[in-house]
């Protein structure tokens, strides 16, 4: 059902955990439909220096979370904002059709975290 990349990220997820005193935190999804994603950012000079996630969800949800953290780290906030859900799914060599809704969360969670950073760090 899942590609090798998905299984790899599911089995050995990158950047799992929380960042204490994170500069930005984003949370999307709700438990009733099966997935919640939380992303934590450490930002320096507009660049994502560190990123961690926690996810409640299926294999696709965990793999997309892991993948989005890998893709975002080292990017400027503006570059990270351009990451799309589709790009995450593509980087995982695709997801099964019935799983596309999970992939619609990872980039959203990242964007939420950036938004949260900008709100709390403006001015």
């Amino acid at each position, binding site marked *: 059902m899942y590609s090798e990349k998905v299984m790899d990220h*599911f089995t050995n997820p990158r950047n799992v955990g929380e960042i204490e005193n994170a500069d930005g935190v984003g949370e999307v999804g709700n438990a009733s439909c099966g997935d919640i994603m939380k992303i934590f950012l450490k930002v320096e000079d507009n660049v994502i220096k560190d990123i961690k996630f926690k996810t409640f*969800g299926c294999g696709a949800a965990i793999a997309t979370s892991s993948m989005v953290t890998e893709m975002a780290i080292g990017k400027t906030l503006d570059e990270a904002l351009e990451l799309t859900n589709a790009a995450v799914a593509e980087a995982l060599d695709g997801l099964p059709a019935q799983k596309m809704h999970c992939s619609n969360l990872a980039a959203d969670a990242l964007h939420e975290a950036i938004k949260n950073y900008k709100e709390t760090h403006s001015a």
Partner: protein
Amino acid sequence: MKRIYMDNNATTAVRPEVLDAMLPFYREQFGNPSSVHWAGRAVSGAVEKAREQVAQLINCSPAEIVFVSCGSEGDNMALKGTVDALRDKGDHIITTTVEHPAVLETCKALEKQGVRVTYLPVDHNGMLNLAELEAAITDKTILISVMWANNETGNLYPIEEIGAIARKYKVRFHTDAVQAVGKVPVDVQKANVDLLVLSGHKLGAAKGVGAIYIRRGTRLTPFMHGGHQERGRRAGTHNVAGIVGLGVACELAGAHLEAEATRIRALRDRLEQGILERVPEIKLNGHPDPNLRLPNTLNVSFAYIEGESLLLNFDMKGIAASSGSACTSGSLEPSHVMGAMCVDVVLAHSSTRFSLGADNTEEDVDYVLEVLPPIVQRLREMSPLYNR
């Protein structure tokens, strides 16, 4: 890698004796049992023998057995055939919120045709209130349909008592016994059921064959129209090999029922106790008394984690189980059975069913008990809902 199959409520391996019995009917005795000639004759005898074997397991007469293609067909036939046959008598069906989709979706389809359906709720343990059932009966009630055992929790319903209520009010009684037959004693006379459905692949026969018991004198409109097979009650060329195998599976199940139930119950109890001891923050789903569940079934929820990722991790260790999570179902909702029991939706997503079978051993159970706790812990540590 070790492979441990604990998903026998989803489907079972065909038993070796069953497969052996089936094989001659593909290339040697391949005739159509409806045919007059040599190729048909041998075969029709084999179908009739299987009918006797099935009848014996559930204590009915062979003429009351009709072969069908699966449990779902049996349930469709029981419900739709009753509504069509008894339309003049009434338009009301009573069933439960925890039935298999084969019953629930059929009821929904019947509702579109104007049939009224009462879906009885269950309590937190998944059990019915029989006073409520009795109170739901009206003079328009034509059918009560309650499953013998629930596929997700293994809960056993009080079929004899429901049969007595049905008889008291002269309402027809159907039971989906797909999960019960072969696992626990099933006696249609004692239980006073009028219609009962079973499915081969849940008891060691092949996929693609099942049977419905139709009590003598029960008017039931055919579901499958066409040829005269099954005395006009089910059209379509007989799945001869499948039917022969179902007969043998029923005979085997009957011969070893008690011993096998005892053996499997001990394994299940060991698994249940072991998990409860080793993993904190879990919830047992279904009746807390394991004797009020099928001997092979255990359903537990692991707080904070989701079922599919749990199953995938089990799978990587060779363990096959199943989950009530929405993420494994193809729909967006977690198990309707968990919902009916008012299991918290997050816990419903992590509900995990272990259903043991003929091939499981104590070593299998111990292996599961060994690998399960660290998997749960690892997933919990990834979960935003979990706070140590």
